[in-house]
């Protein structure tokens, strides 16, 4: 005796992005933690020391947050105007920050008052950084100059005035204490050597430069400005390597993932794109709520911190593998070991006869109702299901049984509007259209008489109509495109020639057959 055959749910090919190792890696972050700052977050910097606190520069303050704290661990508020570019020294002890009032301040991370104050710039300082020997500070300012300062006696060492516009970004070499790079709104990137009076290399970005980044090997330099991200080969004398145009607004910030394999760029278009650094293809994309001004990654990519123009700081932490297991383990109380082993380790004797238990098949709820021919109930159960493919499969099964009309009939306003809602959501999905159009026609047939009695149902019918009309318009547009393509194909095909050649006459089996060769494509 055969058993009931359950309804087949067809497996549809998954549309959308492909699952790659990259998407798996970058999706493995928890839901973001959001912290509201006082103003636009212009700079974020991670401390290189173990807990990896990070300094967030926003408005006239610099907050230092711990890795998992929502509240700032420490706050520096002694700024007269907007602060810029709070940066940690490589030992994590000191923090330097520029300010709109042209003063550069150096703080002890544990203290409150500035240790040193560097005065000399005439306009706001947007760029500050430590050199790799830890004794000097690089600053870049809106007065078109960049300067090097000595920390111990807080004096200016050198000043370069080569840029012809605001200097808004810069970085120091981590390998050489004398080399640093600045980017300016005059579209150029300049590489300076502190031992030389003038810049040693100049590169033209052809857009105001917003951010620069040096690869750990320092052979490659990445700059961003306008919609472009450009990669330069420093070892070849600043030759442009790649120009990436994946954003549609100004790219404001660059970052490198911890292993140096992925490059991140953040833009005012609210996206963070992740590139593979071997082929510079976009491998992943994050969306944010507002334009992004600053971005930083914790060491080992433990968290991604993004600051936005609306003053919101968004922190995403990586999911830890232990946590996942814990959640799974907690949900189920495991039966004792004995239960599992029971009867399993019994070794059958040589001439034992196996009697297998009849396998009990488990049917889904709608299948149980279909088995009992409760068709309306089965459709209700299927509609409650979240997955439209199951609902559509049940509808298809009912249609096959010739009872779809009965199942759709006899519904009250609430039931009908639920049904219409489902149709509105799915009728134009090409996977479900054949079945759902049949169902729609049936519903129109059945409920023709009661149209106009319920405002809810009428509104839904109008929506359904609009939806279907729009779909028809789309299809017609597509047909037009197809027609155009056809003309293109037809014109691109060479003319066919028909040439006949009569060559010989043969007589086989009472038939005279002319042998002809036709030359054609």
């Amino acid at each position: 005796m055969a058993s009931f055959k359950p309804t087949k749910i067809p497996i549809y090919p998954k549309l959308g992005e492909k699952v790659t190792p990259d998407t798996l890696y970058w999706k493995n972050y928890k839901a973001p933690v959001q912290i509201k700052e006082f103003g636009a977050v212009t700079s974020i910097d991670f401390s290189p020391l173990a807990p990896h606190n990070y300094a967030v520069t926003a408005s006239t303050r610099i907050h230092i947050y711990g890795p998992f704290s929502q509240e700032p661990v420490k706050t520096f508020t002694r700024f007269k105007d907007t602060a810029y570019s709070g940066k940690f020294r490589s030992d994590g002890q000191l923090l330097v920050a520029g300010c709109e009032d042209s003063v550069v301040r150096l703080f002890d991370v544990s203290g409150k008052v500035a240790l040193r104050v560097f005065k000399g710039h005439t306009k706001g300082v947007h760029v500050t950084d430590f050199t790799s020997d830890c004794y000097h500070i690089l600053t870049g300012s809106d007065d078109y100059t960049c300067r090097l300062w000595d920390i111990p006696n807080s004096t200016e060492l050198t000043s370069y005035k080569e840029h012809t516009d605001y200097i808004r970004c810069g970085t120091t070499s981590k390998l050489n204490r004398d080399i640093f790079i600045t980017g300016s709104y005059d579209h150029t990137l300049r590489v300076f050597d502190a031992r030389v009076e003038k810049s040693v290399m100049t590169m033209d970005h052809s857009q105001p430069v917003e951010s620069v980044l040096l690869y750990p090997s320092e052979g490659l330099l990445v700059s961003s400005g306008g919609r472009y991200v450009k990669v330069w080969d420093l070892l070849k004398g600043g030759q442009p390597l790649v120009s990436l145009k994946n954003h549609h607004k100004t790219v404001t910030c660059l970052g490198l993932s911890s292993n140096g394999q992925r490059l991140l760029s953040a833009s005012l278009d609210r996206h963070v794109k992740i590139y593979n650094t071997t082929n510079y293809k976009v491998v992943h994309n994050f969306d944010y709520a507002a334009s992004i001004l600053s971005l930083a990654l914790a060491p080992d990519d433990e968290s991604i911190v993004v600051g936005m123009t609306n003053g919101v700081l968004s922190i995403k932490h990586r999911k830890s593998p232990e946590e996942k297991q814990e959640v799974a383990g907690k949900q189920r109380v495991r039966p004792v070991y004995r239960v599992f082993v029971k009867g399993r380790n019994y070794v059958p004797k040589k001439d034992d006869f196996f009697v297998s238990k009849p396998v009990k098949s488990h049917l889904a709820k709608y299948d149980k109702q279909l088995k009992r021919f409760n068709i309306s109930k089965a459709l209700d159960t299927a509609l409650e299901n979240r997955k439209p493919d199951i609902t559509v499969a049940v509808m298809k099964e009912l249609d096959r049984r010739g009872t779809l009309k009965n199942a759709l009939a006899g519904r009250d306003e609430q039931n009908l509007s639920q049904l219409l809602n489902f149709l509105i959501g799915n009728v134009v999905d090409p996977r479900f259209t054949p079945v759902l159009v049949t169902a729609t026609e049936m519903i129109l047939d059945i409920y023709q008489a009661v149209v106009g009695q319920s405002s809810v149902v009428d509104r839904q019918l109008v929506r359904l109509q609009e939806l279907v009309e729009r779909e028809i318009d789309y299809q017609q547009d597509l047909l037009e495109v197809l027609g155009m393509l056809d003309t293109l194909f037809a014109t691109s095909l060479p003319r066919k020639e028909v040439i006949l050649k009569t060559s010989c006459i043969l007589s086989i089996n009472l038939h005279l057959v002319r042998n002809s060769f036709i030359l054609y494509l």
Partner: protein
Amino acid sequence: MVEHAEIRMVRRGGSKINFREPVITNDSRFLLCAAGESVNVYSTSTEEFVHDLQGHTDLVTGVVLNPSNHLQVYSCSADGTVRLWDFMDGILIKTFIIGYPIYSIYVSEKHGGVVFVVVPMANYKSSELFQLVAVHLPRSGDQEVEARELSAVLCDVSPHPGAVSFGREGEYIAATKGLQLEVFFFKKQKSYRFSLKSGMKKGVKNAFTCVSCHPKEDCIATGHADGKIRLWRNFNQKKEYTYTTLHWHHGAVNTLCFTPEGTNLLSGGIESVLVHWHYTQENQKDFLPRLGAAITHIAVSPDGSLFCTSHSDNKITIIQSCVKVSAIIQGLVKGDGVWTDLIIDPRSKALVLNGKPGHLQFYSLHRDKQLYNLDIVQQEYINEEGLDQFEVVKAAFDARGDWLATVEERRKKGAELEINLKLWAYDKLTQSFVLNTTVTAPHEDRITGMFFSPSPETTMLVTTSLDDHFKAWLLADHSDTKGKLASYSEGFWSCDFVGGYHLLKPGCCSYSADGSLLAVGFQEVVTVWSPASWELLTTLSQPPGAIRDLCFGRLSCSKYLLGTSTKNQLCCWNLLTCSLEWSTPMDVSLLQADPLSENMAAFCSQSGSSDLFVFKPSEPRPLYSQKALCTGKVQHAVFAPRDQMLESCEERTQWLNRSQTSAQLTPLSRSLPQLLHTPAHVLPSASFLCAMFVRSLLVSRSSLCLVGWGTLLHSYFQVSPEMFDQVQVRAPAAPLKDIQRLVPKPILRFLGCVLRVVVLLQGEPSPQSENRL
């Protein structure tokens, strides 16, 4: 020439075993059933065929146990004889010649030496009226005796064997016909008639279908066409009879049977559920559902321990103690038709064809037994009339029997055609086929042919369809996804190539014996392709008439390609010279190649009967011919390998007189824009199509092709089909009538919906809604 005496046509089996009610012997060891011109004896415990009782010269129409000797059985036949057999040894004991064709036979213990048979009424020439007669069997020692001592019992009875039943201890006999129940009492020699009103609510559904009498009490159970069962009591007078009604069946009650003690009543119908009514508590009933097909007969063993049910799919089910199916005797299932053609499974050498709805049956020709049933559709079968079911329409095996491809389709009235292509892999562990890939909507119209490549290196499948294309499917090696989906070790099938030729409909296709060439017949033109590169190598054409069958020669004749056309031509092309070798005017309805030799078989239909010719492609003279093989047209035939290896192969034919379905022709576009119309899963991979696309944009160098052997220049060469297509698609906004041609189906259906919503909400019928699409 082979000697004619060696070849003869033999009927090998496939008889109906559900024609009449089977009989279980007193010891419940054997089951006897009428099967064609013989009575088959099966074992009830092992379901094996034991032996058959042969002797009748026409259809056996009834089998009953001899009530006076439980080792003997009576059988009656349309040849006008009743025969008495010893079924244990299979010996014919006596033959009683009645002289009229007999339709059914009844016996009763109380009436010794008498059998009751239904014969046509003698004085009516048209055999529309039947009578029940008692035949007194003469006691003589002869093998063959004439029994002429007939006495009519009831006139005007139904020839259906379930319509007559003996009552308690043979005191009365009940017969039904139409709307009438007639009970004849032997003591009183009087009959009473009870009739039901035809117009009870819903008309003629009241008709009696079967009758069964209680063995211990005065009670008659009758089944009706509307699914009701009536229990009649107190019927020994004309007026004060009573009946109670039981109703569960939604279709007609096909058969009724009381258990020997009378405690239970069994009924069955199209629902394929055996219903088990308790006689004293009528509202209590048990069910045995999903027996597979409509129940046609129910029989109970004399001790009441075994039930057996005959089903419409040529099956007898033996049920133990009303709950467990203990054995199934399955004959060759005759479904509604053989759409799949006759196929030989290369592994089991079984004949494969349509079986139960949605199934393929594997039938052993040598043992006349169904080996197993493969569920192709895998859906719950709903027993309801008028429902469009999925049917398996095509099936094909690859050369080694590792793969099975099936096509199932369902055509609803007014809706789109649903087609699924399924590929099944042979599983060595379970010794059966396991579903590997399902392709929904592989083509946009009916699939006309499906063939596997015979070469052992590549597993390739070609399907041709009425949508002007043929598609090649290849077993793709998904090595990149193997890591993730470890359970699917074999990979899946995907489309490799879509081919077409000038918007003509491909009708048939054939692979050469080594798989290096593929011939596809596009109406009048035969195209030859190379499956390795998908290049069109050559085209062959011939005097008018669409190609019906194509067949490559084998072994020494592999350079020949044979084709038959609808205009009475059998052509043989030589592929080395691309020229016609010979042709002959013959109306070949079927062409088959022997897979083991180079012989070909051609069936010709001439003046209502079919002829068979066996020939070698290299010589146009037939090796063997058989005139008037059978009446009617041969629809399917296949070479079947013998069990013992013999040099020649036997032909097996099966003819089913079915009319051919005509195909609807719809205009469709070329293969390249196909990729914009068609769902991606039924197309070759994007990389392949991309290359094709780019190539189509380039100016291709013209290549020389041979189109040989046309006495006429065909008209389709003069119109460029591409340009024609253009005209259609770019036509300006057409009136609604033409829209069908211009707009693909989904939009049409959408349009239908919108128009109706407009009409519903605005309340004014627009002129468009009148001629709704």
